[in-house]
């Protein structure tokens, strides 16, 4: 497979080079459906849920989860997007990430917020997202869904819903989209 641009990283000047496919698009779809059912099971008042996708890799999964939950329950789920670039704690030790759109129209006070991301790794993105959400008020609860949990946590953070646990080495990189999950490496352009 030819080199392809890794769209869901905003690390300047890097390209994701895939090595092998870990999950097919069908397997990803099945995992998303399963997560949607788990979310419905755990949240009786599903209309109180707001799904927020993390820029940029979490957006496609957030939208897909909202679609499946709507399909199954008939409830329209409010969604939003969140960019945590301005909240990162590693901002001073690496070049700034390019920012992406944040759009949270819902009032989050007393709502259950479901954060959605593609890959859970060190946990620092999620910590930044929790910080950011505090600026919108006080949600009743915050839950986390990720497509892939690849381990190597540096903070006490865990996901409530996991599409697939994939133990990886820190030298590797994971690319997760609705088109499948790939393992590969990040190389400089």
């Amino acid at each position, binding site marked *: 497979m030819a080199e392809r641009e890794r769209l869901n990283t905003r690390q*300047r000047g890097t390209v994701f080079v895939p090595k092998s496919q870990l999950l097919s698009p069908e397997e990803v779809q099945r995992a998303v459906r399963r997560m949607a059912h788990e979310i419905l099971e755990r949240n009786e008042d599903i209309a109180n849920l707001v799904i927020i996708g993390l820029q940029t890799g979490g957006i496609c999964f957030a939208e897909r989860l909202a679609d499946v939950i709507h399909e199954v329950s008939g409830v329209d789920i409010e969604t939003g997007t969140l960019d945590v670039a*301005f*909240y990162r704690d590693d*901002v001073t030790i690496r*070049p700034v990430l390019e920012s992406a*759109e*944040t759009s949270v129209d819902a009032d989050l006070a007393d709502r259950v917020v479901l954060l959605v991301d593609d890959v859970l790794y060190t946990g620092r993105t999620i910590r930044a997202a929790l910080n950011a959400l505090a*600026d919108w008020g006080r949600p009743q609860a915050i839950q986390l869904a990720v497509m892939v949990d690849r381990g190597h946590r540096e903070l006490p953070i865990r996901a409530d819903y996991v599409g697939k646990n994939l133990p990886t080495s820190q030298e590797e990189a994971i690319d997760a989209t609705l088109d499948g999950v790939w393992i590969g490496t990040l190389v400089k352009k």
Partner: protein
Amino acid sequence: MIDSIAGGNLVSLATLSQRAIVEVLDTAESFVEVNSRAVKKVPALKGKVIASLFFEESTRTRLSFETAAKRLSADVLSLAVASSSVKKGESLRDTINTIDALGIDAVVMRHSSSGAPVQVSRYVPHVRVINAGDGQHQHPTQGLLDAFTVRQVLAARAGTSGRESGSELFAGLKVLIVGDIRHSRVARSDIEVYTRLGAHVTVAAPGTLLPSDIAQWPVTVATNFDEALATADVVGLLRLQKERGSGAFVPSLGEFTSTYGLTARRAKLLRPEAIIMHPGPMNRGVEIDSQVADSSAAVIEQQVRNGVPVRMAVLYLTTAGATLESDPND
């Protein structure tokens, strides 16, 4: 040409590529969203110290830079030059070294001498330098916020977002800049930013208020002001700068107004969708009639409002991260 101001200084727009400019505009879109929240503050520059050094007076630039720094959680050291040792004859170098000794990460500076920010960047290479206007040279953040305002207006009309449109709304756009081009750093920055984004810039001014090297600039000089007005998409007016001696370059203010002022009569020549801009402070009744400045075609207040998010973008990109060379992931 530089492709990103991330981790660097912002002294002039002349060295920035289109990509670097679009990155600032896109980042500013993120900060417009931040400024619309109940809590208008993000921790991106927490622990950073930004010195604001205005050796020349300013209201909006200074206030919007300091507001921008505070909304990014930076600490702001503000030097009131009029009551500082500068008045006792301290040199620029000594002033900068003194402030640097207190520990600063960035300096936002305005100075009446062209090139002062470049000089300062040599004195303190470890400090990010952001030019807030130097003599007749450049006023980069004004140029950026003017372009941002134009993109915002055009994107709203086209039913798209600024971020999605990138630079495409500027392709072939006719921008007319009127007035004291010779003394204006705003004109120099505007011309850089608009031409880099793909617009076509025309200038209109009495011959005495055009710089002597205008032939080398990437602009067309209007031979007939009224005709140029009738085809312009954007009209950028400039303040007649009496403190830089502009008064001596025109026979009288009244004559300037009647030949190059945007009077209510002349404003009727404009296309209905033309955008009228002014960087402020305005000399109402000189370069622009009061009723034109307050008309719906004028976006002067929107320019001031956009000053904060655009300057947040500049401070964030230049000061928040490490320099591109020191990426630990390399």
